[in-house]
């Protein structure tokens, strides 16, 4: 397999309710990514597009609908979708195309416009549940995440006031991110006092409904070296899917994230992830998810993530900064675009170009991870400078 690098990136602002159409958002991010590395659409061999359920937009063939905005006109083009895990599957999908030798360059773009489904996109999620055994009970996604959070808490004795610190950290980090929807200085008390959605999940434990798009440009080594002095290499990729029988799994631990991470670490030659990974962007659509994923990624031992948080290890200035971007909780969570936003954060950090968000210590190895479907998919990308 050939080496594959990220050479350019682009990101729209994230808001709830943007005026731009999904295609216009995709165009904005893609154009920005090409401009960032001074490439033209004619330099691009193929395009891959990540975007979450068609039901958000009410547009079937959403991939095809978006393709004009993504530079897909008369190019090899393919859409991928693995729920909330889509955004970190996107670079993997692009990596196949370039690593295989089939193409030298690839646009990897993800777009999400969640606000079209109203009054709330949550309603569109009813149909992800089993139509016979679960839908008649009118479940919502918030419930199943609260159910998972509770199992995680009761297994280890974690406290809500400790988990709330993830929101405090990430929303503060997001204050330095130009795309951020919800950057803010808040306290643990603010999180605990925010309205209950589905206990143990309060309003400030959840990422917002967001619209936005993000894009990276991938290139094979000979092209990457010509385009930029600082290519960031995709050194490991992994993805795995667990059973859709989610009520018959023990939700305290994301085995599928571990499987995906082990695959990516093996490929990248990483033996001790907690030492060799310098910076991470685990998927944080809910506060507890950052911790759940840190454990699944092997960045601490099982049951060790809360202590790591309390010790400040995951702060921007800590030994293993997690979500220095501000994450889904702070920057926003336009599902598929969030994953690429996280990849772009690692790209910027490893290049030493993250500005006010730059972590100290010149990191050379980082990872981004996403998660989704019925709490069952893990997607992991390991990057090095």
């Amino acid at each position, binding site marked *: 397999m050939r080496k594959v690098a990220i050479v*350019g*990136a*682009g*990101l*729209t*602002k*994230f*808001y*709830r*309710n*943007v*005026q*731009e159409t999904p295609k216009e958002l995709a165009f*904005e991010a893609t154009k*920005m990514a090409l*401009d*960032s590395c001074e490439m033209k659409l004619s330099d691009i061999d193929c395009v891959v597009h990540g975007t979450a359920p068609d039901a958000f937009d*009410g547009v079937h063939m959403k991939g095809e609908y978006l393709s004009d905005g993504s530079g897909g006109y008369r190019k090899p083009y393919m859409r991928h979708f693995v729920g909330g895990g889509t955004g970190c599957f996107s670079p993997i999908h692009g990596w196949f195309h370039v690593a295989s030798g089939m193409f030298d360059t690839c646009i990897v773009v993800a777009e999400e416009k969640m606000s079209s489904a109203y*009054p*709330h996109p*949550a*309603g569109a999620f*009813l149909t992800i549940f*089993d*139509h*016979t*055994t*679960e839908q*008649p*009970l*009118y*479940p*919502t996604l*918030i*419930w199943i995440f609260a*159910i998972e959070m*509770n*199992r995680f808490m*009761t297994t280890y004795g974690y406290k809500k006031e400790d988990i709330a610190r993830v929101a405090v950290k990430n929303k503060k980090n997001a204050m330095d991110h*130009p795309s951020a929807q919800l950057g803010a200085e808040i306290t643990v008390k603010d999180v605990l006092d925010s*309205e*209950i*959605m*589905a*206990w*143990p999940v309060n309003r400030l434990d959840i990422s917002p409904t967001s*619209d*936005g798009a993000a894009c990276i440009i991938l290139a094979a080594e000979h092209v990457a070296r010509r385009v*930029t002095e600082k290519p960031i290499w995709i050194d490991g990729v992994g993805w795995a899917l667990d*059973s859709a*029988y989610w*009520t*018959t799994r*023990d*939700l305290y631990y994301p085995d599928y994230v571990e499987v995906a991470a082990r695959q990516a670490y093996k490929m990248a030659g990483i033996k001790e992830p907690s030492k060799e990974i310098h910076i991470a962007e685990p998927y944080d659509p809910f506060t507890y998810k950052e911790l759940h994923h840190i454990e699944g990624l092997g960045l601490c031992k099982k049951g060790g993530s809360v202590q790591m948080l309390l010790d400040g290890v995951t702060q921007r200035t800590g030994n293993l900064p997690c979500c220095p971007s501000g994450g889904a909780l702070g920057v926003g969570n336009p599902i598929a675009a969030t994953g690429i936003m996280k990849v772009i954060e690692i790209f*910027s950090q490893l*290049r030493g*170009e*993250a*500005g006010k968000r730059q972590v100290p210590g010149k990191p050379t190895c980082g990872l981004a991870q996403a998660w989704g479907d019925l709490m069952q998919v893990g997607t992991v990308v390991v990057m090095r400078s």
Partner: protein
Amino acid sequence: MEITEKMVAKTATKLSADEIQKGKVLSVKWTPKLKYAWDNGPAIGRYLAELKNGKIIAKKCDKCHRIMIPPRMFCELCWVPTGEWIYVQDTGIVNTWVVSYVDWKATRLDIEGGVRPLTPAVIEIDGASKGMGILHHLNDVDPWKIYRGMKVKAVWKPPEERTGAITDIKYFKPIK
């Protein structure tokens, strides 16, 4: 110029919900009217027929010996067809649960007005293999007094009201 300066977010125009709802910006609305008739398959079909009889049925994998609920025609772990049907109890324990102030559309319930929060749970069914749970609601219990491992029992609709659906069980309630 550093690459990150060039890729900094420029556009995406923020709208307020008000601007859309009051028509200050134009939008088009559509409510899909789609209808489906989902076949249940032999495993869930039998499961529903037994619910109508007031019983819960599981299916066993002869390879890993798991007694699985909801029943399935193949074991997703061993990847083989499953074996015998086994009746399990209509009791179980709470594996994990939620105290929800919102409904399926994320619309807030009138908790201040006296509406009881919803308390969906994963319930491990007695007689099935350890950890085998189903999603259902808890009721007849103070939402804030539910705990992991709490023993519960199904509260059934009267036989004449049952339709062969998961809702033939109204909810689960605590037992001693």
